[in-house]
């Protein structure tokens, strides 16, 4: 047994808020051996980032260590002076931060910021340190490191920025690498490549790594040991395969079950964990999970369960783990069937149709030229034709910058498309919002990504909903009826009537998003455009909102245009899927067609990159090299040819590919014959 690189023993941490010191992390122990990648999973507020930084001996200005100790190769980090810690930071203990753009200084070049580490710790000269920085950039597989070193953070793509922070963290060969949600802001295709890179580099440097994430899919892909944190306490800790294959703690079980998977399908509802995680200073005295636990007994609310070793390396904090292991208590009921959902297949009918939609930014008017210089033209949406069928969901997927949000905004009218025709319920819909009829506004509603920004903080939930009713009702409602409708709407989104008098600040993220959904449904719309409605939410909360959207579709007979970068969430809700790349649709078909036989090489790569929450399926088959080109310089011919693993040859560079019918409404825009593409998918080993 090798000696652990880092070991936390009984670590407890507090934060100082107005009310005094509040406990954030309680009695956490974990250790990581060289080459080990330890996953730390938890939802927002679980204390995972606080704990991760504590493993580096770092405390936020308003935090303190109230118990326990952290040992780096036998030395107690919290007995060290600031000067001693500074000597370790960046050299022995390194952080790869979450939001790489914000974590880099905007005013200095990449090379300068990486070189700082070796200049500080190894006393290298300016020139030698720069040279070393360029070598590090090459090691994180950045093409043309010499010129990237001279660039500034904002000039790089998100994936490149993240590589830069990795290069910086590794440049002094640290013993421990703390990775704090390093891929959360990235597209799945980039994420898959970065995860591969982590594996290689950790192997190469023999470091130990702590990988912090809320994403159980990513954790399954990269970690060998996982600790599940809830409300500052360890709920379970186990080898990764065991944790996913045989979860014991009710929280772990619930969390794993609530993740939509590409194979979940549209017939079922996701099991959810009721309630929300307790706030800091509001944690229950017994088992912290008891208020949300389906198996909680009276004594769970009063006695704190100990963390017990149930198998080698597998610890669980639950009073009832014996019964759960023996199968005497079932935590989960079988996935419920979703309310019967009849997707109309009538081909001629559509709720919304968009034909030849275009939106270009950055034209050059005289004023713009005078004040800003001529801006480059960005073709964000370029000749897009989509159709949403009655009572069905069209899922729109693609990497960031593919134009999916612009398309949604053009349809809703928040942006005015430059060209193209729109039809809502077979009636022409003007591209300009101001020219749309009130009835059309009512029929077409939107739910946005971040519920924190979409609700007016100075209006109660009731006032927000009343205003929506007032604006959207076909005929004016008397006040008492309006109030009645507000309560009905709250019930529809499973909120109790007392929520009507609360302000957004008093709601959790998931509750806010439910209010946003209620607002969109205030006047029974025909189509709801949902742009990443669950991306800002925690896993357990995401499941609640996804279920709600699914139920409402069946109850209210609405249709959705559902946009997400999370292909699993899309698969859960969508009947039809359109895949977008650089402003164009490249593949379209039913969810089954697209997921089971993703035929366009881009779709294939996208689906192969989904981090599946199953360690047995780690590492997909296809990796896309390079970043998506910027929308300002779109490649000629097929737009995907610069990254395509199945590129045929010069024809892809010169000619725009034709649409090909693959049967049953499945269409692909590629030079390779559709039959050939489909055959590839049938013969390829299926990963799921």
């Amino acid at each position: 047994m090798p000696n652990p690189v880092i070991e936390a023993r009984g670590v407890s941490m507090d934060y100082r808020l107005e009310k005094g010191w509040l406990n954030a992390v309680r009695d956490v122990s974990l250790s990581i051996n060289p080459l080990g990648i330890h996953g730390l999973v938890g939802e927002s507020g679980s204390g995972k980032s606080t704990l991760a930084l504590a493993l580096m001996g770092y405390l936020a200005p308003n935090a303190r260590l109230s118990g326990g100790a952290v040992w780096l190769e036998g030395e107690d980090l919290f007995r060290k002076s600031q000067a001693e810690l500074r000597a370790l930071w960046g050299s022995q203990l390194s952080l790869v931060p979450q939001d790489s753009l914000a974590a880099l200084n905007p005013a200095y070049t990449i090379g300068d910021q990486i070189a700082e580490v070796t200049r500080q710790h190894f006393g290298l000269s300016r020139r030698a340190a720069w040279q070393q920085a360029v070598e590090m950039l090459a090691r994180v597989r950045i093409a043309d490191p010499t010129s990237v070193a001279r660039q500034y953070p904002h000039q790089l793509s998100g994936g490149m920025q993240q590589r830069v922070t990795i290069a910086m963290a590794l440049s002094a060969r640290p013993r421990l690498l703390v990775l704090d949600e390093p891929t959360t802001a990235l597209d799945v295709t980039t994420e898959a490549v970065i995860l591969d890179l982590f594996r290689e580099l950790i192997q190469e440097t023999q470091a130990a790594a702590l990988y912090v994430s809320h994403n159980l899919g990513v954790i399954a892909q990269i970690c060998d040991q996982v600790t599940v944190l809830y409300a500052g306490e360890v709920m379970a800790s186990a080898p990764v395969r065991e944790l996913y294959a045989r979860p014991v703690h009710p929280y772990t079980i619930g969390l794993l079950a609530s993740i939509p998977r590409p194979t979940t399908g549209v017939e079922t509802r996701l099991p959810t964990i009721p309630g929300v995680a307790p706030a800091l200073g509001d944690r229950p005295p017994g088992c912290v999970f008891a208020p949300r636990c389906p198996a909680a007994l009276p004594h769970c609310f009063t006695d704190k369960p100990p963390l017990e070793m149930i198998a080698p390396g597998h610890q669980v904090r639950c009073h009832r783990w014996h019964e759960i292991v023996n199968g005497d208590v079932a935590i989960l009921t079988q996935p419920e069937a979703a309310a019967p959902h009849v997707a109309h297949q009538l081909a001629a009918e559509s709720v919304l149709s968009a034909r030849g939609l275009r939106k270009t930014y950055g034209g050059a008017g005289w004023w713009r030229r005078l004040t800003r210089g001529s801006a480059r033209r960005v073709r964000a949406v370029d000749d897009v034709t989509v159709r949403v069928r009655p009572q069905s969901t069209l899922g729109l997927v693609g990497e960031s910058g593919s134009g999916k949000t612009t398309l949604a905004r053009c349809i809703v009218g928040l942006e005015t498309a430059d060209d193209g025709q729109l039809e809502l319920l077979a009636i022409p819909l003007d591209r300009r919002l101001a020219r749309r009829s009130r009835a059309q506004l009512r029929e077409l509603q939107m739910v946005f990504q971040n519920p924190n920004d979409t609700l007016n903080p100075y209006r109660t939930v009731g006032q927000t909903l009343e205003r929506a009713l007032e604006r959207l009702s076909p005929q004016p409602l008397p006040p008492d009826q309006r109030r009645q409708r507000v309560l009905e709407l709250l019930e529809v989104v499973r909120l109790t009537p007392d929520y009507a008098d609360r302000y957004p600040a008093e709601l959790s993220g998931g509750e806010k998003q439910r209010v946003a959904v209620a607002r969109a449904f205030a006047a029974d719309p025909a189509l709801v455009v949902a742009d990443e409605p669950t991306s800002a939410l925690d896993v357990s909360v995401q499941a609640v909102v996804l279920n709600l959207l699914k139920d409402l579709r069946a109850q209210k007979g609405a249709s959705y245009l559902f946009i997400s970068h999370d292909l699993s969430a899309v698969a859960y809700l969508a009947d039809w899927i359109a895949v977008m790349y650089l402003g164009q649709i490249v593949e379209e078909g039913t969810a089954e067609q697209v997921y089971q036989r993703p035929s366009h090489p881009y779709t294939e790569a996208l689906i192969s990159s989904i981090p599946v929450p199953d360690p047995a399926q780690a590492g997909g088959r296809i990796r896309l090299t390079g970043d998506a080109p910027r929308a300002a310089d779109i490649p000629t011919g097929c737009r995907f040819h610069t990254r395509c693993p199945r590129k045929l040859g010069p024809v892809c560079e010169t000619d725009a590919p034709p649409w090909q019918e693959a049967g049953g409404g499945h269409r692909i825009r590629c030079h390779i014959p559709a039959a050939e593409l489909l055959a590839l998918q049938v013969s390829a080993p299926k990963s799921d």
Partner: protein
Amino acid sequence: MVRYLARRALLLAVTLLIASVIIFALTRLLPGDVARLILGREASEMALANFRQEFGLDQPAPQQYVNWLVGFLAGDWGRSFTGTKAPVQPLVVGRLGNSMRLALMTLVISVPLSVGLGIIAALRENTWVDAAVSLLSLAVVGLPEFVTGLVLINGLALGVRALGLPATSTVPDGTLADWVRQLILPALTATLVLVGYISRLTRAGVLEELRKPYVRTAVLKGLPTRTVIFKHVLRNALLPTITVTALSFGWLIGGLVVIENVYNYPGMGALLVEAVKQRNLFVIQAIVMVTVFFFALANLAADLLYALLNPRIRLE
């Protein structure tokens, strides 16, 4: 970069043109007949007509404007209505030189002082140091310049005679000692006005940057606190301070009316007040145009410096 400069120069010209129209219109809207005001109630109609003709005031307003603008561009800024009816340009340019001396002295004192105070307050956030800096700077901002000016004169010039500071300032001659001696009191008075604004802004800027994730990155690289603050934080935190300093420069050039009067210093502000009292139209117009020009120029310089220090803007 060349194109950017050309574009900004063009915008500067447009700004000045618009300003010239406004200034001209305003001076012509001042109540009372200029000729009557200058020559007095006893003046004959003949004398008034002669006066108007001499200065072109008998022509229609648009014509007057064009004449003035063309002359102004050619370097003929008109003549003073009073005294020897001397040309306006040498007078205003001379006063401009005096104002710039005072402005320079003020900036040399106030910028390092207030930026330093702002940084200290931010690094000692919510301590007594922070509170003291905030209270003091706000207190002196609240006091009018004639109060602080008189306090300084009574305290330093008349109170401590050993310092040898003059109670009224004249234009310094070449030596550094003379510069300090002549300008220190008015410059300190102006500094007391500026220090509140600039130090508050610096403090806010530093605090905002300190909370950004890149600061934590720098700390966790193991850099000494000194490097984190001076290299990483200040480079970004001081960007807004540049803009405010530039605006202050414009104010120091044309707006030190009260301070110049308190110290009897021959700057542009004092001249402007005098000219307004006398309805000395060409002098007013020239001073305001020069002030607008320096305001705009300082702004342009600030934008360029800002862009130079901020790659996000420079490389767009």
